[in-house]
């Protein structure tokens, strides 16, 4: 392939370079550390704009592909590239980078050096996950981002329960991802034995038809890893703890990008690799998604802590994402991807807002507040818009995502969709009720009388998010268009591959040796005989 661009590698590794630079800066000058980090994140964002504008939105193939052999004896290569599905998530990640740094400018005052290094490492891991097209490379990035997040929660979190929340986050994630690693290896050997080419290249593995019975187990392992990350009910219990204990920007990154890695994992790996199992399991997955939507909303309703409330609302919102995705219709999947972005923007913004008020009052209990809109009018405007966006008010981004998802899934899962739609109403209840208790009425608590309204920096943090919230809401085509060919291709691929596997299974047992070889019983005698 001529004309190879190194743009994606640059975007992935510039934060690493930034971290290396920071390593040599004196920890006594936190301002310099912050500036280096934000410049690094901005450069990253500008580079990703080149990707966005250079992206050909009329084709579904991978673009900006780079490939270098890495561990050739195992068929592992450094292969990155993006299509319409990952493009938006990549943009979201790089876009949030500088915002996050700006948001923690005054918040983080201890161990600034380590904090910035963690943020940059996290950025490397997240971008890497979205661009990698090699299962091994993907797994490496997926695990790498665990460490900075663990440190963010554990070191800069809320003193009371940060250690518990941090280790819980790590253990939940790692159990899922290690089982996924086993599944990746099984898939690798299965494909290798049957085609003769041992490779971790995702696009090549896409073309390999996995026998139905094996698909079930492999899908289960991938499902576990991703469902924990999303998080889907009932694997969500790490999320409220991690969110509540993490520092503000930790929560923002966690909600906006890390959770998307789970949903992205389904759409990029679990579903296209194992379409039969995915379609067969869709009923169950959607059941869990709908339970998540309603359960998350109900639990959010009774929270007394604003941050916990927003955390549970994530469980509910990501239920929608899963619902749309497993409907496997164009609208459903498009809505699901848009909803990922929406959730990143709105929930990220809500966490920032909760963080701003926490910085002023050092409490997040709803009962401590009341009438804040009188003291902080500008703050109230932003808070209102993001609340409405989270609820899904027409004209703002949330509506587009939820509408497309419900539209896309109605034909396939009529009753589920009906129940899911009630989640929209519950969202209005808990969000507006919280907003009302915090912002409206008289100022009952004298401590709230002298709160300062948000300053220029905080406006600068929230405004970019606001722009996109409105933009997606008013003219979503800007964002839907580049993903359309890829989404159509994705659905076609799933259907074609599913049909092919079914046909293969029915047309006799010519593939039986593979099924046998991978059967989950270990048998030494067989190995011996083969040798």
């Amino acid at each position, binding site marked *: 392939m001529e004309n190879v661009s190194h743009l994606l590698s640059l975007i992935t590794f510039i934060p690493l370079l930034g971290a290396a630079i920071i390593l040599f800066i004196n920890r006594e000058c936190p301002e310099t550390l912050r500036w280096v980090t934000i410049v690094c994140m901005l450069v990253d964002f500008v580079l990703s704009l080149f990707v966005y504008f250079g992206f050909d939105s009329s084709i579904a193939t991978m673009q900006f592909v780079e490939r270098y052999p*890495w*561990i*050739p*004896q*195992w068929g592992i290569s450094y292969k990155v590239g993006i299509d319409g599905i990952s493009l938006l998530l990549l943009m979201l990640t790089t876009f949030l980078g500088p915002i996050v740094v700006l948001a923690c400018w005054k918040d983080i005052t201890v*161990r600034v050096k*380590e904090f910035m290094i963690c943020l940059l490492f996290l950025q490397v891991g997240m971008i890497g996950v979205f661009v990698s097209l090699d299962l091994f490379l993907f*797994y*490496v990035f997926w*695990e*790498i981002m*665990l*460490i900075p997040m*663990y*440190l963010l929660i*554990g*070191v800069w979190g809320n003193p009371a329960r*940060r*250690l518990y929340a*941090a*280790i819980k986050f*790590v*253990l939940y994630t*790692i*159990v899922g991802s*290690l*089982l996924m*690693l*086993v599944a990746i*290896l*099984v898939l*690798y*050997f299965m494909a290798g034995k049957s085609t003769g080419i041992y490779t971790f290249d995702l696009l090549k593995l896409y073309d390999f038809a996995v026998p139905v019975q094996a698909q079930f187990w492999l899908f289960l392992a991938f499902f576990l890893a991703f469902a924990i990350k999303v998080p889907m009910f009932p694997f969500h219990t790490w999320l409220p703890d991690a969110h509540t204990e993490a520092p503000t920007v930790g929560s923002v990154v966690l909600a906006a990008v890390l959770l998307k890695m789970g949903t992205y994992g389904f759409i990029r790996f679990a579903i296209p690799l194992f379409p039969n199992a995915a379609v067969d399991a869709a009923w169950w997955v959607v059941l869990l998604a709908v339970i998540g939507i309603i359960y998350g909303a109900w639990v959010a309703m009774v929270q007394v802590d604003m941050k916990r409330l927003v955390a549970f609302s994530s469980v509910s919102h990501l239920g929608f994402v899963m619902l749309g995705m497993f409907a496997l219709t164009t609208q459903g999947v498009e809505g699901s991807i848009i909803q990922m972005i929406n959730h990143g923007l709105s929930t990220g913004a809500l966490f920032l807002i909760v963080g701003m008020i926490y910085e002023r009052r050092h409490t997040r209990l709803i009962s401590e507040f009341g009438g804040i809109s009188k003291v902080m009018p500008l703050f109230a405007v932003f808070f209102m818009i993001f609340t409405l966006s989270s609820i899904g008010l027409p004209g703002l981004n949330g509506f587009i995502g939820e509408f497309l998802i419900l539209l896309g899934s109605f034909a396939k899962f009529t009753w589920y969709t009906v129940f899911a739609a009630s989640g929209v109403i519950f969202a209005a209840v808990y969000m507006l009720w919280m907003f009302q208790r915090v912002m409206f009425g008289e100022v009952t608590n004298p401590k709230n009388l002298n709160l300062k309204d948000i300053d220029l920096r905080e406006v600068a943090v929230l405004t970019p998010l606001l722009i996109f919230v409105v933009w997606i809401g008013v003219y979503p085509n800007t964002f839907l268009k580049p993903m359309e060919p890829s989404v159509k291709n994705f659905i076609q691929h799933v259907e074609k591959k599913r049909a092919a596997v079914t046909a293969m299974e029915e047309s006799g047992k010519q593939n039986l040796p593979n099924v046998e*070889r991978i059967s*989950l*019983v*270990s*048998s*030494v*005698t*067989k*190995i*011996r005989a083969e*040798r």
Partner: protein
Amino acid sequence: MIPVPEVNLGGVLPALVIGVAGLLAMLLGLFVRKGAVTVGAVIGLVGVLIALMVNAPLRLMNTTAFSGMIALDTYTWFFNMLILVSVGLTILISMKYLVDQGLDLYEYFAILLFSAVGMMFMVSGSHLLMIFVGLETLSIAVYVLTGLLPGNTKSSEASLKYLLLGAFSSGLFLYGAALLYGASGSLGLAGLAKYFQSGSVSLMALVGMGLLLVGFSFKVAAVPFHMWTPDVYDGAPSPITGFMSVGVKAAAFAAFLRVFFECFSSAQVTWAHIIWVLAVLTMILGNLAAIVQTNIKRMLAYSSIAHAGYILVGMAAGTPSGAAGILYYLLAYIFTNLGAFAVVTMVGRRGEANINLDDYRGLGKSHPTLALAMSIFLFSLAGIPPTAGFIGKFTIFSAAINAGYIWLVIIGVLTSAASVFYYFRVIMKMYMEAPDVEPESLQFSPSMAFALSITVMVVLYIGIFPTTYLNLATESVKTLF
């Protein structure tokens, strides 16, 4: 007239060089009053460097010497290198430690070098007696090193325990060898292999094989033959604990693999099941017991048991890729664990006063570099990419999956998920908790700084670019199959 066996000193030159270095260290120690540590260390390091050089030709050989007693092949070359590297690093780690502890002992290095000689004969032995002689040479030296802390009852107790249990396991090994000789009339690995391939294997030979398996399991600390490990690792001087956990383990696994793959490969169906059970027990018990430890040396002792379990997974796979995985794993493990023990040595201070997990509180703040190094070693032990430990686990697990042992691998990954808990707890102590009293700052000696930077760089480098080393491992196990 007794025929004189052909003598090929060239092949055993690395071991000879180290032996001579040990003798020199002992002799010169007599004449140097002060600074015996430096003299011993310099002699040891020079010896290691020369030995590494004369070891190089072994890579291209594939023959036996001394009437089939010693195998000179790539496999020997690889393990000689591992042993020499771990001795070299141990010397670097020990230098300041000995001075700090007030142990001006030149014998320390002499005994360390002698144990390395034993190891090198053990890994190159292609005759059960040769392996036994190597095993005993290394064991006796290590018993002494374990009890080296004068006036420290824990150290003496550890030494005695190790001696008693070690002697017992040596006895079992020897008995197994005797039974095998009785059944097959040969102690050479080639002769034994022929006997096992002949098809009619007597029960006596199988019992003999089982006893060898027990003997080796003792040395590699596989459950249920691990009882000595925590106490001995806890009582021994920290650098020696590090040395034991990598050097002795590597040498024992080298001989274990050679004997079982070369001689008993035709009986693999029989022993693979036993190894399967041992691996599962070792991984589960090692990891679970490590969780409840409050002393870092005991924690790392159980963790080293657990790592023996992962290595046994590669053995159960029984394929060339499994064996190559073991070799790479040991390479990664040597650098990782010696690095971790270097940190333990440094934090331990005089009299090994600070070996509790709580002593690591606040290390991230008071000694950021040291804490960063320790974190990298712990990530590698936990198998988090992009460290050497991850690639090690990956190779072994992928070989086991390829051989059809999916459940074994699932148990392996679940136990290694549990291990994340205790490895991360040290990180938690270092970065997220504050010490009760601010400890005095620790001094990096040049040798320690050198050892730490080498280990950190290697752990990261072979974790990110493992290709060359994986090829070396694959090349080295060719002679076994």
